[in-house]
């Protein structure tokens, strides 16, 4: 128990994981109930929590790692929170309310919040573990990829979702010759329809990223290091690096070992509590009503709700309407809700392919159900609010599509 304060008057709360969900949760909780808990945050990365969303900007060279730190050390100290960086919890003894750390130490808790996040997936294909094959998840990954910098380096990004696009853009900004291979027939198929994806593809290509669709990577070749990638259609692309951006898997091993209910992630109820009393989970490691969110916003909502509950306030989490923002400068993409709007939904679509603009609102019974905005994402916040609130929008369709009318000059 070295270095840990023994404040018997306060309840002992341990947060496992030191990412964005954990930080927001701690911030909310210390604001609401400054003296109620004795808080310990344990994170396995050797640094303070940072904004993972901005890693693509770091990769692109637009920001440094220091720039994306969420809270400075003084803040943690001032909040009375102890942070253990570079430490990993390897076991939960729920019965004893005790955690075992990778250095052999153990920590007792009264309550524990799991915020262990997720890890990047790799395709289970031959050569996926060769040197030069990366994922795009944390600062280390970014640092590894940053070494590709320089004229003539060729990278293949596998995966045409949000993460893949951001990785490809970041590398392209560094002067790397980037090809992005996506197994589906369109980019960001979970967020965009065919028209929106097609406009996005053109915008991305204008940023210098070569895009291959329907491209199923089957094998990575190389002797001691990545040399080329083979595809199902028979083509082979010579590369110096491969970046997998094919999705994430919730980090639920710890919970599983502890005997908690686990699906894809750690199952939680509307109170963010797992099947084990006193054990909570938030963020990407959690599974709420069958949904594992891979975005920061639900994690923040969960963190806020849990903070309120632990501060003794009424709160419950009913799930999130998620929205997607692509963080690629000059390529604006927003998607939320029922973005396809099939069946009896009515669609309002504005498209100007040459100008790279596509805006689609999905409406059912005068309520906004979903939206896609490509190229021009103004009004997205209002649109998201309306999707969430379910307010009647029949009188404001034009404004949602084209912005508020200009006020007459006085």
């Amino acid at each position, binding site marked *: 128990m070295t270095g840990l304060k023994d404040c018997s008057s306060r309840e002992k709360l341990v947060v496992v994981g030191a990412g*964005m969900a954990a930080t927001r949760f701690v911030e909310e909780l210390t604001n609401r109930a400054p003296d109620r808990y004795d808080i310990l945050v344990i994170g396995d990365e050797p640094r303070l929590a940072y*904004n993972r*969303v*901005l890693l693509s900007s770091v990769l692109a060279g637009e*920001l440094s790692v220091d*720039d*994306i730190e*969420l809270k400075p050390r003084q803040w943690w100290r001032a909040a009375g929170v102890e942070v253990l960086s570079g430490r990993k919890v390897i076991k939960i003894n729920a019965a004893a309310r005790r955690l075992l750390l990778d250095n052999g130490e153990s920590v007792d808790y009264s309550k524990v919040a799991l915020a262990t996040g997720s890890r990047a997936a790799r395709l289970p294909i031959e050569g996926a573990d060769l040197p030069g094959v990366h994922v795009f998840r944390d600062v280390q990954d970014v640092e590894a990829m940053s070494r590709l910098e320089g004229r003539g380096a060729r990278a293949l990004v596998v995966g045409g979702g949000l993460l893949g696009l951001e990785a490809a853009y970041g590398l392209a900004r560094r002067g790397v010759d980037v090809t992005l291979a996506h197994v589906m027939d369109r980019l960001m198929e979970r967020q965009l329809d065919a028209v929106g994806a097609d406009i996005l593809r053109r915008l991305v290509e204008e940023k210098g990223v070569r895009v291959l669709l329907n491209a199923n990577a089957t094998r990575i070749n190389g002797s001691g290091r990545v040399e080329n990638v083979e595809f199902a259609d028979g083509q082979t692309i010579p590369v110096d690096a491969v970046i997998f951006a094919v999705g994430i898997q919730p980090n639920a091993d710890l919970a599983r070992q502890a005997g908690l209910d686990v699906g894809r992630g750690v199952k939680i109820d509307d109170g963010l509590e797992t099947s084990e009393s006193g054990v909570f989970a938030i963020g990407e490691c959690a599974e709420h009503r069958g949904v594992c969110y891979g975005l*920061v*916003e639900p994690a*923040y909502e969960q963190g806020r709700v849990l903070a309120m509950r632990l501060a003794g306030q009424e709160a419950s989490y009913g799930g999130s309407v998620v929205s997607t*923002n692509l*963080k690629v*400068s*000059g390529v*604006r993409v*927003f998607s939320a809700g029922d973005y396809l709007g099939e069946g009896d939904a*009515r*669609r*309002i*679509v*504005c*498209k*100007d*392919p*040459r*100008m790279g*603009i596509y*805006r689609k609102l999905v*409406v059912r019974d*005068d309520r906004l159900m979903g939206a896609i905005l490509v190229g*021009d*994402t*103004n*009004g*997205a*916040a209002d649109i998201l609010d309306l999707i969430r609130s379910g307010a009647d929008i*029949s009188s404001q*369709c*034009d404004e949602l*599509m*084209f*912005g*508020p*009318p*200009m006020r007459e000059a006085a």
Partner: protein
Amino acid sequence: MLDEVLAPAALENLHNSIAPVQATTTRSTCPYCGVGCGVLASANGAEVIGDPAHPANFGRLCSKGSALGETLGLGGRLLHPMRRQADGAFARVSWDVALDEAAGGFRRIVDEHGPDAVAVYLSGQLLTEDYYVANKLMKGFIGSANVDTNSRLCMASTVAGHKRAFGADVVPGCYEDLDEADLIVLVGSNAAWCHPILFQRIMRNKEERGAKLVVIDTRRTPTAESADLFLQIAPGADQALFCGLLVNLAKVGAFDADYIRQYTTGFESALTAARNIAPSIEATAMSTQLREVDIAAFFELFARTTRTVTAFSQGVNQSAQGTDKVNAIINCHLATGRVGKPGASPFSLTGQPNAMGGREVGGLANSLAAHMGFEPANIDRVRRFWNAPRMAPREGLKAVQMFDAIARGDIKALWVVGTNPAASLPNANAARDALSKLELFIVSDNVTSNDTINSGAHLLLPAQAWGEKSGAVTNSERRISRQRAFMPAPGEARADWAIFADVARRMGFAGFDYGVAADVFREHAALSAFENDATRAFDIGGLARLSDAEYDALEPTQWPIRDGDGKGRARLFADGAFFSQGGRATFIAPAKPTLATTLTKDFPLRLNTGRIRDQWHTMTRTGASPRLARHLPEPFLEINPSDAADLGVEDGGFARVATPYGSCVLRAVATDRQPAGHVFAPIHWTDETAEDARIGALVAPFVDPFSGQPESKATPAIVTPLRFARQGFLLSRNPITLPEGVWWTRVAVADGYGYRVAADLSDDGWTDIIRAASACEDVAQLIDETKSLFSGAAFVEDRATLIWALAPVSPSWDLALELFARDRLDQSERLSLLSGRSGRQLTDDGPLVCSCFRVGQKQIEAAIQQGCRSAPDVGEATRAGSNCGSCRPEIQRLIKISLAAESAMDLAREDQTSMKEGASDETVGF
């Protein structure tokens, strides 16, 4: 739309702003209404403005006249003689072939069937010289008086009324009377729209001299809106009102007994007839459906105002009793001696620019030449003057009868010149069918396509248009003005008089060797004076010996101008000297007022027809002006709101209006300007400009027994509502062929064509039309399934080539018209086209800074400008950075940058101040 309908005619007062007349400026006259305004045209008509020196308008022009410069393009212009081929298409032929065919065809049919088997149908748009040669050819050489003109539809009742009352077709007064009258009564005249320059003179008189204006009309027109007293009279009841007036004038002793005794005849029988028709104010009220108090006010005003002008137009003329109406009005002026005196006269407002010239020439089937009729002495006189081999022995067939004769096959050859009877005649569908039966059907015109040409014309002869042709016109006040050419005739277009003269020569006739228009004019003037000796009103013998140069320089002049007169006369008949036997004017006893038709259960409404402010006739010229198209771009039906409600017709929706003769589909305008039971539709649209709006096809062909003028303003009709799933517009650089089932109307827009459309087409149906019309890849579009709306635009190199907008409710096209006129559109303008509004568009927020709340750099900079000095401040103001916070570094950077910029500014300001101080020191030092 309501506001537009009410808007008074736009006037361009150019008195003060007139540019110095350039050497290249040509003085001419406007080709539209009978006011006959003078214009100044720069070379090639780049600019057409009012002529300050012309006494009709003193420099002013109405909206139509002001837009003349926009109407001179060659789009759709007939440039060469064309002959219809076996396949139905026209092919170019030489003038030689065309003239031989015209002359040979006329010759053959006259030889086989006699002279009355051929006919010529002329236009009030023609110049006096054109009329003269056509009339001479037909009545003196071919030997038939089957020469009539579209003036028959316009002024014939006034001609007949003038002849009955005055013994000659003479307008006794002049425009100055409108300036000098104390009471102006407008009967059946929407002068505010149809004679705007005269109306402005009336309004100025009202303002400056306090003249009263009484408007008598079935519709509350823009003219009526300006009246001191508006009498919304029942259709066909005008002579009841003026009979009642005559009776009342007798009752109050307002007659000019001396004038009646000295200069007139028939007074007693006319008064007796008037007493039968309208013995009292109560009886007048019954017949006219006016309030007694209004009638009494009008009668009282008329009785006590010596300087009274009663001006009348198509509401009087276009009636099966039009001639009686004219005479009922004239009776009141004769009885009060208010004829041809300053500010006191009956006054006919002529419709067309040269209807008067046509009347002077005799270009009507019931007159021979130069105001002479078919009396044996006149026939003999004209024969001798013309040295004519085969004089027409009797009156010919008037327009409606002429087309009946064509339908029967009695007339086998027709030459239509400068008019469009397939659109403008009553029962126009029957007229069109008749045209298709002709053995020889010649059309002289400026256009390659119109409803008449497309009714089976065999031979098209390209005529000079306004601005190219040269000759004389006469306006409503008997003022002869020169219309002069200021641009070369395009292609092979020729003067109409020259075409007629050539055909006459090829038919073997002597006396048609005219070299220039002046030759024709001198002959016309000489005929007017020939054996005249002041027995005929129309005498311009004083102009018979003009040299070519004097003719070219002829100043606007009022006839009569007898030989030896220095100048013409502004007014006639103040002291009698009428042209009937005995020199007395004749009171005419009018028939009991009645309409030619009665309403039935199937046709329970009265259809009135008329003009709108910014179009002229069938729009061949005004239709070329994008500016004029903006006023009322669609054919419409005005209907009283209570009728609309009863019939289920929506204001702004569509209505089918049908009569026993035909039907149209028009935009419905519910307005209380239109009395219940009456509907109104404008006459201007044809098959060239609309899918289903030829209003002539609906008009009953019943005519006045004296004038032969049809009753165009009171046809029984039925209106049914019509709805279309979508309506909207298409703006295209090229003409679009729209499929069956699409209601459309076409107007000129800048560098293209504007279509207003409506239909029940499927999405795919519209998409096919749009795709076919756009034919390019760069397309921006909005599809709003919630509103069944789609709009979009196709571009070639940043220029919109096609713009469309379709929705259940008609979208506004004003913004689209403006953007369509531009050569380049930027991104926000492209989006404006889709949104249909020019509001704040997308992408104005600058680069995105806060992803969570989508706050752009510009918004943040604005917050900093307003005093935010930290990221949390900015968050308070804009929400930026208040969620994930990942943009806070960037917000801080923006704060730092703008604070640095501000302090740099402060430094600069300090520097400036010190420099100033230094400078002043220096100044002191000096």
